[in-house]
């Protein structure tokens, strides 16, 4: 395994620093940073993502359309529902199937639970140990029993809802192309809603906790991109918009977003109009849709002094915490509205066609696109994950950060870089095809 090896090597007079993070702990997947700073200047820099390729878009070819959701769910173990639901949406578009309002609501509900669940694990398991100086949540257990218990309470309450709707919490089962095979009952959802209400205080406490933690003051211009809500906070529907005024429908995604190859890095980058980096994720969603957050989410955001739009990339953690509160409210509202008993699986004929769909995964906008032939076999597939969207921007931000803090000690630089990376919440295993070996 590669090691984290910060080293300083002095060459006659000048100071030369090597920043080498081989394998980020507590990020999903495998990636590293390699930078050389000499004389307080960034000499070289590479963001290295070495998750082995899994060829999802390759092996999906030749498979049946109905397999796409469950197979792509396996792109990522931390936001499987997002892939599942995005693939479902894209495939339904490709084969020309429309589901009813109730089903869409149910999907919105399960997508919300995914965002909340993923934020909880990200904040408590991946980010918090950094701030308090522990190796991980396991090590924190003896000294921070309250936080650990709060974490356990929250995740149990949210996972129970994903489990009820999806048949299980990880790699859901009952949601398929056309609807749900075994939608849960209203009674069960109501009961789980009661449990969820109980952790609302925990959610607010989480926002306060992260509000109290020291956040480096660091401002960078970025183009923030997310779905735009239409009356509701965007989760699985809406136009795609940006802080620069972009407004497009998901059908036009491929005309605006391109991927290209960067010779210096092992990655394939995605950018707006084939050149501009974009930032997706909680921070973008909150920046662009602040008004649509639930009243409680907004008031807690005010309480900790979170102002939009923010330009500090590290604020992503705060945005996530705020989305947990908003998400719980969103779930509670949807539980009142959905009618699970009336949901079934829409009968459908398969028509040849193609279609793409975007939903908001915890880490940002997620795009799936499929072309299906008359027999229901997938002929081509394209998946652009939030991490793929962000990679270019992350590299840009890292460069800027390194330039800004180039004078500090190696250990400190390394830690700041790691913090930034983790605030981006990269999910390297979900990167699907930004990876090259």
């Amino acid at each position, binding site marked *: *395994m590669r090691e984290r090896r910060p080293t300083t090597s002095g060459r006659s007079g000048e100071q030369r620093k090597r920043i080498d993070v081989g*394998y980020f*702990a*507590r990020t*999903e997947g495998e990636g590293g940073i390699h930078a050389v700073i000499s004389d307080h200047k960034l000499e070289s820099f590479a963001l290295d993502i070495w*998750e*082995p*390729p899994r*060829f*999802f*878009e*390759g*092996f999906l*070819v*030749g*498979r*049946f359309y*109905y*397999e796409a959701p*469950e*197979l792509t769910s*396996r792109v*990522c*173990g*931390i936001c*499987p529902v997002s892939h599942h639901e995005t693939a479902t949406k894209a495939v339904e578009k490709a084969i020309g199937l429309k589901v009813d309002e109730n089903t869409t609501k149910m999907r919105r509900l399960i997508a919300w639970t995914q965002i909340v*669940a993923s934020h909880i*694990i990200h904040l408590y*398991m*991946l980010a918090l*140990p950094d701030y308090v100086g522990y*190796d*991980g*949540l*396991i*090590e924190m*257990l003896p000294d921070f029993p309250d936080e650990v218990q709060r974490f*356990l309470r929250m*995740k149990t309450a949210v*996972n129970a809802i994903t489990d009820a709707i999806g*048949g*299980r*919490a*990880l*790699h859901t*089962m009952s949601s398929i192309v056309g609807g749900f*095979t*075994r939608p849960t009952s209203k009674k069960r959802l109501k009961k789980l809603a009661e449990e969820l209400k109980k952790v609302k205080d925990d959610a607010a406490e989480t926002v306060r906790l992260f509000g109290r933690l020291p956040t480096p003051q660091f401002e960078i211009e970025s183009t923030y991109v997310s779905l735009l809500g239409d009356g509701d906070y965007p989760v699985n529907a809406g136009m795609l918009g940006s802080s620069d005024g972009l407004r497009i429908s998901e059908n036009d995604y491929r005309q605006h977003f391109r991927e290209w*190859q960067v010779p210096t890095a092992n990655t394939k980058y995605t950018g707006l109009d084939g050149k501009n980096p974009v930032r997706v994720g909680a921070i973008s969603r909150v920046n662009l849709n602040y008004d649509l957050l639930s009243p409680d989410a907004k008031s807690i955001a005010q309480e900790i002094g979170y102002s939009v739009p923010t330009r500090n990339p590290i604020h992503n953690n705060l945005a996530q915490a705020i989305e947990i509160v908003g998400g719980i409210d969103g779930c509670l509202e949807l539980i009142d509205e959905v009618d699970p008993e009336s949901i079934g*699986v829409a009968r459908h004929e398969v028509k*040849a066609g193609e279609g793409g769909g975007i939903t908001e995964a915890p880490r940002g906008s997620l795009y799936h696109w499929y072309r299906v*032939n*008359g*027999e229901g*076999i997938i*002929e*081509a597939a394209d998946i652009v994950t939030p991490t793929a969207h962000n990679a270019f921007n992350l590299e840009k931000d890292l460069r800027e950060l390194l330039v800004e803090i180039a004078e500090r000690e190696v250990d400190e630089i390394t830690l700041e870089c790691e913090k930034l990376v983790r605030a981006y919440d990269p999910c390297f*295993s979900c990167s699907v095809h930004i990876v*090259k*070996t």
Partner: protein
Amino acid sequence: MADKLKTALFKFTCCAGCQFQLLYFFSPESFLETLDLLDFVYFRMATSKELKEDDHYDLAFIEGAISTTEDIEKVKKIRKQSDIVVGYGACAAHGGVQSIGDWTPQRKLEETVYPNPLQMKSIKVHPVDEFIRVDYQLRGCPIDEVEFMELIRALAAKKEPYLREYPVCVECKFANNICILLMRQGVLESMCLGPVTRAGCRVACTRNMRACFGCRGPMTNPNIPEMVRTFKGKGFTEHEIFTRFTEYAGLSPEFSEGARAYYERKAPYYERPEWRAA
């Protein structure tokens, strides 16, 4: 109580869902009991504790399939360093979803995903036990909480875990489920691999009215020819049968027998007209 087992968890090619299953989706009781029994000295997702060269582990979990040449060396090293090696999840046990790619020539795969495949040096996906001896397999995509607890409790008590060998059907009936395979409606819904797939998942699929897709791989001595005949009898196409057998454990000899039942002497499926057309 006996000392905790010194444990390391390594991730290879996979979605990391099985780690999250443990970290996040287990009930709090199981999670805390796990921490009581195991001392994780290396678990990248949960702790930034560094890997120590030449460390020794009582127990090593290997998550994910092997898909680079470097990985082969890594798992061999892990084997040497560990008393007990557990294959953790379907990817480790049978290759997992990415093993679907093994049925397509590698170059072809690379071409579909990357514009300039000449730079690629990827290899096929392999289950971990192709390279090293694996003492136990925790199967399934993802692993099952109850089975995991059974395994670590047994290992902590230094005894054999009771891992079921029988097929999913047994648990399906325990769970009072209607037989998906016998519901002759809704095409894809009834293509159930339950009679040949190993149990232990507490019927995640069929209790949700989904057909078992064999993520736990074959039971001991399954009747594959009969499974193929049954699917055929229900009117499934050859390509459908092929896809079902190759979803998660297509690399196992048993399931690949099922997958090959129709493709053996014919053109591989990616060249078959049924999807090339249109």
